[in-house]
């Protein structure tokens, strides 16, 4: 029996410190090649460099003139898309910080519960570190949010005055919940270990629910931009309500509110899980003592499982959301699925597939030694099969449905026979099944045995976890861009346009958004890493704050 690299297997008790680096190289190469092909080939051939402002120019001519800007447009010295780039940067970065709470609160709650059920110290340690991490980074997230509000009112005053007026009451609720969730998370941190189990759970639930509802409140606005509750904005008299109660309800509880909400929560959980894995891997590299290495190895695995769990739920929520957009804003659906923004969905699904492949590789590598020891070659082969099948599914999923035209059904486009949505639905299902089964196998089949292996992390699995962390975050900020692209060139769909007409085309063009993504990821990860250095619990010495 040989290891995957063809060498003789290490003796029992030893492990292969490198693992199969070729798989990692393969993943990274696939990522790079995919992005290159996307930008060099697919985007140009799907009209990806043509702005929605020009494509939908006729629609824009029909926009109500009272929603054009009266104030001269504030430039920001970054070109025609400058203002949009400002918003994109601040909002995408904000989401990376906000998701720490939206997703992290649930994972934290799970750690609290697991700790009190199992009495295993490591759950408590990880939970405590996470609580401090979130407490510290709360300010950072809030700063970007507030900056975003400034950018809205300064750069898009008509949109902002209308929008803040329509959504005043949800925004007030959101602001109040801000205070409540600070109270919960700060109290949770400061009372950690000093109060009863019931209090921990109460505070943990309070934290998770307050941020859930805060997100819900702001999502009334966010979703309403894409699927507004009315055909235009009609104001009534001054007073508590600027328009009839029923109208407000249509605006707030609009058709994509719930799908967006759930989609975001699942995404945040997945994002946070993969982030834990990423940071755990960095700590693993940092620390040299065996207890720390065991702990961080375990933490990485814990994170990957949560990341995967969020990931396998996402496609269901995503297709629900996509259907809502199809039914209630069909043109936007066309933009992102059969039109010039479809490349963004390709990017997203490419990342998703790669994430499942990476997770499979992680488990192949991570559990190799244990599975060999247990004699479970069936599972070893199943994991390998998963990786290969996921790769094939990914290959199907990244197929552009057409090339050579702005819209899929324009005359003269070439229809890709491999690009049928039927195949993609099946491929996504395959990914979901793979992801779910990996979780099941790891949690259930290998339970109780995995503890023996902590600390024996090969370079390959270490790298896989790092990649998962980056991809898990990147996919979040790709999706934010997708929603903006779907909505372009409108701010409130078919009601309030992006002001300035053809002079200020939207969405942010592909190259510029790539730069924004790099900045957002770079900044966020630098902050995450720096903060986790001080918040983490390390077994050999308690970090005092």
């Amino acid at each position, binding site marked *: 029996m040989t290891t995957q690299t063809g060498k003789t297997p290490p003796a029992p008790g030893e492990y292969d410190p490198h693992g199969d680096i070729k798989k990692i190289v393969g993943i990274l190469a696939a990522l790079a090649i995919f992005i290159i092909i996307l930008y060099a080939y697919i985007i140009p051939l799907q009209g990806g460099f043509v702005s929605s402002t020009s494509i939908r120019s006729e629609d824009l001519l029909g926009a109500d003139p009272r929603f054009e800007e009266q104030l001269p447009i504030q430039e920001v010295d970054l070109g025609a898309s400058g203002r949009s780039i400002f918003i994109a940067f601040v909002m995408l970065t904000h989401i990376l910080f906000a998701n720490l709470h939206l997703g992290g609160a649930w994972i934290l709650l799970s750690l609290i519960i697991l700790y009190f059920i199992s009495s295993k110290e490591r759950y408590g340690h990880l939970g405590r570190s996470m609580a401090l991490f979130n407490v510290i980074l709360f300010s950072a997230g809030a700063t970007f949010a507030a900056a975003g509000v400034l950018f809205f009112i300064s750069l898009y005053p008509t949109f902002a005055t209308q929008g803040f007026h329509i959504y005043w009451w949800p925004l007030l609720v959101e602001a109040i919940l801000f205070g409540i969730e600070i109270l919960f998370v700060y109290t949770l941190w400061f009372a950690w270990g000093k109060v009863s189990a019931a209090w921990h759970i109460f505070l943990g639930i309070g934290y998770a629910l307050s941020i859930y509802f805060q997100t819900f409140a702001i999502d009334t606005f966010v979703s309403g931009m894409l699927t507004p509750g009315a055909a235009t904005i009609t104001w009534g008299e001054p007073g508590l309500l600027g328009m009839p109660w029923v109208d407000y309800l249509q605006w707030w509880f609009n058709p994509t509110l719930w799908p967006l909400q759930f989609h975001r929560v699942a995404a945040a959980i997945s994002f946070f899980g993969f982030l834990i894995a990423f940071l755990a891997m960095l700590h693993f590299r940092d620390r040299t003592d065996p207890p720390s290495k065991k702990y961080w190895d375990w933490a990485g695995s814990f994170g990957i499982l949560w990341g995967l769990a969020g990931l*396998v739920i996402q496609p269901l929520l995503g297709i629900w959301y996509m*259907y809502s957009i199809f039914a209630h804003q069909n043109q936007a659906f066309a933009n992102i699925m059969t039109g010039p923004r479809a490349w963004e969905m390709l990017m997203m699904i490419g990342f998703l597939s790669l994430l499942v492949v990476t997770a499979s590789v992680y488990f192949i590598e991570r559990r190799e030694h244990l599975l060999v020891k247990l004699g479970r070659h069936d599972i070893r082969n199943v994991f390998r099969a998963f990786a290969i099948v996921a790769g094939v599914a990914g290959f199907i999923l990244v197929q552009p*449905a057409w090339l050579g035209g702005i819209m899929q059904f324009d005359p003269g486009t070439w229809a890709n026979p491999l*690009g049928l*949505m039927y195949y993609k639905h099946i491929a996504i299902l395959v990914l979901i099944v793979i992801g*779910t089964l990996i979780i099941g196998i790891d949690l*259930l089949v290998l*339970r109780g045995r995995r503890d023996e292996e902590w600390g024996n992390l090969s370079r390959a699995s270490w790298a896989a976890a790092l990649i998962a962390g980056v991809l898990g975050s990147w996919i979040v900020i790709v999706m934010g861009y997708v929603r903006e692209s779907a909505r372009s060139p409108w701010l409130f769909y078919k009601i309030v346009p992006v002001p300035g007409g053809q002079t200020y085309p939207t969405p942010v063009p592909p190259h510029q958004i790539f730069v924004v993504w790099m900045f957002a990821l770079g900044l966020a990860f630098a902050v995450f890493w720096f903060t986790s250095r001080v918040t983490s619990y390390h077994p050999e010495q308690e970090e005092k704050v």
Partner: protein
Amino acid sequence: MTRERALTYAMWVVIAIYIGIAIYVFWYFGFTKLPSPI
């Protein structure tokens, strides 16, 4: 049957149900509701 085994079986059932739901959702939205290609 120990509690652990019961828990394990239960979780596998949950996984199976979830996969079933996923298939249904995709069939419902993907094949019947959303437009078919061409």
